[in-house]
């Protein structure tokens, strides 16, 4: 399946990625599983996505938790806790 990924704020800056298209096996893919796949890219990826920092995730613009399932064509985003207003 194909998904589109977005990174924001500290994640975008540290990972040096703002957006990317990913092609993944058609297994059941949760947010947690996707994080562990991305974490294998290297230390900084592991620290950012599976480390001590709080990371929030959204699928198709809706906030979701680690158990949420990603489907083909979804837009997935990772970002830190929000600090607007």
């Amino acid at each position, binding site marked *: 399946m194909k998904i589109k990924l*977005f990174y*924001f*704020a*500290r994640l*975008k*800056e540290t990972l040096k990625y703002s957006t990317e298209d990913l092609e993944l096996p058609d297994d059941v893919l949760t947010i947690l599983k996707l994080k562990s796949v991305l974490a294998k890219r290297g230390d900084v990826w592991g620290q950012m996505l599976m480390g001590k920092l*709080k990371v929030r995730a*959204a699928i198709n*613009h809706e*906030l979701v938790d680690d158990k949420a399932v990603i489907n083909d064509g979804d837009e997935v*985003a990772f*970002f*830190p*806790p*929000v*600090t*607007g*207003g």
Partner: protein
Amino acid sequence: MTVRVQTADFDIGVEINQLRQARKDIGAVVSFVGLVRDLNDGDTVSQLTLEYYPGMTEKSLAAIIQQAKSRWNIMDALIVHRVGTLQPSDQIVLVIVTSAHRGDAFSACEFVMDYLKTEAPFWKKEANSAGEHWVEAKSADDTARDRWSIEK
């Protein structure tokens, strides 16, 4: 209902005038304007940069207004949030709520701000003489939001 994310500044007087020209049964207009403080958590702030998630941010703000409308008897609501680079004392965010009576407008406006602070995808980066850093989320903001689930 109006939701705007923009780099340009806003004029609260213009926004209120538009809301009040729409109907003549508005009795109360409660507004919140957030400003960049020159001091945050003990550090001086020389500049602030705001990032957002185009698409999701607007949906999130619209959903917060819908929640406020379902809880209080309000007529209309507007949120304008700036992004990009701002200086101390610049305006960051504007929330306006109109209603027949003031109690509903006060509660709904504070509710919108408490949810915006904790749920709308915006991120602040502060700059001072020591460099730049991302602002950490505050547990006080979560506490402020969580009040609304026990209190009406």
